[in-house]
């Protein structure tokens, strides 16, 4: 892991007196390598290393008896800073029904996460309503309806024969009539470069006025995370991020890239396929993973 690699760098210093610029450069090279292996975007790593260097040439490292540990501490602190210092809750205040819309690439976990969030909110005493607005993918509506049954949450019924904006509009009216306070809209997976489908998202936003637009991203995403997140954010504007499939061994560097480019908070992480596998995001656990 990074601590061991940095200790090895600084071990060669024992008895050579003060740390030099070159020692720091070696240490930074190890940090850079660790971050790239963790899937943090190349340019994000470059900026990050610049910030680390400024602190690393300061007295906290140069005059430390354990410079390796000091560098790890600085990297850890900067990661936490970048990942978002504290947990950021869903924005649910205001006129009901409050609308949450989930967006993202194909297969990232939107449908499963929609049901997870519904279950989460129900446990907190809210009255959620699930809306299957994916009319493209085979059996997508059946998938959400099955999950809503498992979550014990009401689901808007549709047969995929109307456009997603219509489904959203009617579902929100239904929720109002039923006295349900939170509408959770599952959308079809789409590419950030698909102009027509990004336009469809804008149209849905216009119709549904969501208070939260959550970008659902796979924790295993690689270098392209920056590109993808920026495009979704610029096209429709995201208010938060959900990082899924994080319970595997993906280092999760994509989180850093997405945070760096959108500055939006990571609200939840998906830690499994079951509906209770949703956790509120805390940055320090992910920081440790990214460092390896």
């Amino acid at each position: 892991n990074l601590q061991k690699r940095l200790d090895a760098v600084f071990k060669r210093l024992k008895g050579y007196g003060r740390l030099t610029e070159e020692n720091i450069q070696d240490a930074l090279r190890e940090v850079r390598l660790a971050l790239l292996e963790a899937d943090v975007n190349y340019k994000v790593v470059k900026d990050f290393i610049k910030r680390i260097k400024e602190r690393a040439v300061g007295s906290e490292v140069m005059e430390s008896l354990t410079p390796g540990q000091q560098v790890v501490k600085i990297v850890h602190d900067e990661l936490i800073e970048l990942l978002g210092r504290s947990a950021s809750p869903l924005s649910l205040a205001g006129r009901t029904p409050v609308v949450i819309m989930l967006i993202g690439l194909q297969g990232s976990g939107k449908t499963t996460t929609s049901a997870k969030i519904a279950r989460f909110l129900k446990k907190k005493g809210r009255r959620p309503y699930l809306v299957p607005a994916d009319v493209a993918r085979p059996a997508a509506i059946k998938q959400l309806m099955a999950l809503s049954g498992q979550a014990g949450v009401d689901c808007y019924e549709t047969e995929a024969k109307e456009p997603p904006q219509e489904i959203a509009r009617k579902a929100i009216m239904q929720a109002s009539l039923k006295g349900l306070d939170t509408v959770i809209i599952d959308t079809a997976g789409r590419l950030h470069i698909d102009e027509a489908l990004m336009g469809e998202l804008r149209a849905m936003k216009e119709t549904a006025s969501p208070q939260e637009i959550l970008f659902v991203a796979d924790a295993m995403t690689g270098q392209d995370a920056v590109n993808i997140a920026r495009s979704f954010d610029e096209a429709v504007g995201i208010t938060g991020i959900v990082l899924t499939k994080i319970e595997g061994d993906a280092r999760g560097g994509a989180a850093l890239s997405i945070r760096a480019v959108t500055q939006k908070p990571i609200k939840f992480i998906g830690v499994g396929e079951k509906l209770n596998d949703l956790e509120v995001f805390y940055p320090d656990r992910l920081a440790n993973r990214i460092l390896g």
Partner: protein
Amino acid sequence: IFRKRKIDDELLEELEELLVTGDISVSCVTEIFERLKKEIKRNAISDGDALKEALKSIILEMVDIDAPPIPWAPSPYICLMAGVNGVGKTTTIAKLANILKSQGKNPLFVASDTFRAAAIDQLLVWGKRLNIPVIHHQQGADPSAVAYDGIEAAIKRGVDVVFVDTAGRLHTKVNLMEELKKIRRVIKKHIEDAPHETLLVLDATNGQNALNQARQFNEATPISGIILTKLDGTAKGGIVVTIANELKIPIRYIGIGEKMDDLEPFSPKLFVDALFS
């Protein structure tokens, strides 16, 4: 970035950035650069264009695994699909079956994902669209039992190719990998040479984790081929360079969209060209 430029540190750094941002592992990029430096010396390469060509041919050699094409015979030819969650296994089965039907082959679908909500329904929709029968049990059934029944049906019906769809699973989940091994064992008990193909589906937007996926899945159920999906996005899928170099598994197809026609045979040359575009 290549034309008329002299080969200096700045150019080499730009090349490193290009390859790393394409998701090729840093260790693999290091190896590529070591080979490149030898090439530069051996052939006295002095301009950007020649350098680019040398670089391309090094990477091409890594991904162009020498393997005969998939025969899709003898019947019933059993093809087991595996991979982590959401990569495109089910959709890719539909695409492969579509190609085989157009070649006059008679496929069969086996719905061995009995766990995920509406997974069976999803495969049923594709079966209906392609006019391909689907062997399935109820939600929650034993995936191996479904696979067994699928092989039985394939033999009885004289089907040419059998696609066994499995649930997405993270390679780190021991019990799920054991389940996959069991599906394979059950298939093997039924037909000795089966599964004739075990195809690992990888998502081109994944980064270094795809290497772990390839290693672990290959360990559990020897992978005969890789299918790289979602290359219609902006990710380059460069991790397959590392995977091919290390595991020598042929990349067979690429997924380039969500429709049944959106599958193409893997072209090493086009793939390497795309890395540099």
